[in-house]
């Protein structure tokens, strides 16, 4: 992938200028506006907006559901990627392309349909509710819809890595006397870990900011099933802009920390070249 010195191909200045101004206007200025608004708050004001029982409960709940959803996503997603890459079965291609559906399906639609599937009269709820599993208007409902949203990220990060396993490593392990389980556990699995972690981080970051699907499936009860983005919206509807921006700043901080983590991981994976 040789990159040509900038003199030969035209358009360097034009594209640089346009790209930077577009990003500046679209992304940086709004971001700076938010940060300036937050920094104009005094410390006690900021603290008073962020450190209340309701905000703490919302962040705690957000972290709980996002973390559970990311853990479930990484387990299911890795397994799905494995099966899709390694085995042949009827309708494999169909299931493979359906993995992308949550990328293309509006979150509001996902929320709507999940909320109707798991209620007592719903298609799945009628079997699950009698068993005591309540998948609607409960923390479980939020986790379910976040798994729907996050799982494809894991599949699509793990899948390309699995496709690079061409059987040679396994052949070597077999010749050295490893059985199938040892080969998987000692040879294949360690090579899948970096991609799985990257997928986990993506699913987690996405879950933390998710709003559309969650408002449909959660009862959004303050102190119980209210997530941080829902809290921001309710502060906005009270026209409490300073409080809303303070909470948003904390949420932004969490998202950026996740983003930095992804990039660090990406670099680490590249250096240790799988």
């Amino acid at each position: 992938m040789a990159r040509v010195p900038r003199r030969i191909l035209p358009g360097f200045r034009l594209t640089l200028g346009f790209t930077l101004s577009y990003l500046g206007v679209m992304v940086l200025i709004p971001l700076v506006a938010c940060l300036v608004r937050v920094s104009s708050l005094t410390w006690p004001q900021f603290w008073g907006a962020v450190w209340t029982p309701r905000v703490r409960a919302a962040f705690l709940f957000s972290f709980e559901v996002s973390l559970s959803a990311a853990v479930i996503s990484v387990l299911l997603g890795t397994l799905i990627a494995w099966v899709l890459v390694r085995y042949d079965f009827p309708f494999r291609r169909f299931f493979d392309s359906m993995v992308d559906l949550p990328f293309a399906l509006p979150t509001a639609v996902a929320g709507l349909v999940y909320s109707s599937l798991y209620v007592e009269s719903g298609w799945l709820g009628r079997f699950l509710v009698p068993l005591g599993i309540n998948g609607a208007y409960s923390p479980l409902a939020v986790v379910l819809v976040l798994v729907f949203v996050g799982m494809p990220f894991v599949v699509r990060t793990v899948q390309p890595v699995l496709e690079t396993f061409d059987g040679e490593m396994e052949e070597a392990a077999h010749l050295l006397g490893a059985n199938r389980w040892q080969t998987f556990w000692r040879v294949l699995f360690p090579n899948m870990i970096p991609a799985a972690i990257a997928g986990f981080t993506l699913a987690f970051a996405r879950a933390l900011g998710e709003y559309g699907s969650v408002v449909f499936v959660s009862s959004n009860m303050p102190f119980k099933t209210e997530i941080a983005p829902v809290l921001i919206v309710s502060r906005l509807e009270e026209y409490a802009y300073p409080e809303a921006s303070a909470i948003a700043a904390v949420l932004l901080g969490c998202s950026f920390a996740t983003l930095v983590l992804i990039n660090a991981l990406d670099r680490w994976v590249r250096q240790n070249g799988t």
Partner: protein
Amino acid sequence: MLLIVGCGKMGHEILAATLRSKRHLQEPWWVRWSLIVFTVAVMTVLIVIPVICVFVNAFADGPRTYWDRIINDQETLDSIRVTLTVAPIAVIMNIIFGVSAAWLIARFKFPGRSWLIALIDLPFAVSPVVVGLMLILLFGRRGFLGPWLIEHDLKIVFAIPGMILATAFVTLPFVVRELIPVMEALGSDEEVAAVSLGANAWQLFWRVTLPNIKWGLLYGIILCNARAMGEYGAVYVVSGRIPNETDTMPIRIEKLFQNYDMPGAFAVASILTLLALVTLGVKVILERRARREMELAKQMRETGTPV
């Protein structure tokens, strides 16, 4: 890479065949089949059943009633009109940006390049609700530009322009992210050849670059469009949810849902679900076509003759 949407499946046939031919590299049949059954079950419950559920609920009272629910509801019709106004403009903005940024990143080396890539990925990490909030803080009545906007009688927040900005922010990375890997894989040989033969920038783009990247670009556009039409959180915050004026289709779904009009909500949802399914279908077709062209190009390079 942050989002790998268009990852290839070229290797599967070869890989599966290799593994099949070597019995000792296969898991025992019962392990294989229980994993397959489990995967199919999970995918069915998580993804396939919800899709079927949308259409069954939408058509529960027959296609006639379904049609009436969409056509005879002025608010629903208006929400479709608003979505068809907001999404295309945001998508066009991101196409122009995407092509420009991909050219810059895939063809030139310059200091700060990796920072630029990180900046492009940033919208993935920002909660849509926060995007809406940022725009209100900037353009709202009490925002930084608020007084100036009121003075000039301009309305951005709680109106279409703000919704376009919010949608464009959220969907910003999709076209670029699709183009960069395609352009990097293609390399710049053909473009350098064109320039050395005297092509100007305009000819270079329309005659060489665009034909090469067209399938990747098309998929980027279609995915970006699906996301733009379905965007909810950011638009919810900046639109003000004025009926008949700033309600988009996803917001209309939420309003119908809140009014316990489930058939109506599912009718609107079915349109967006169809859009998502078409997006996936187009992806499959484009991937197949791109693969075929790649193989043809490889063959040409090896034999030195056009096929």
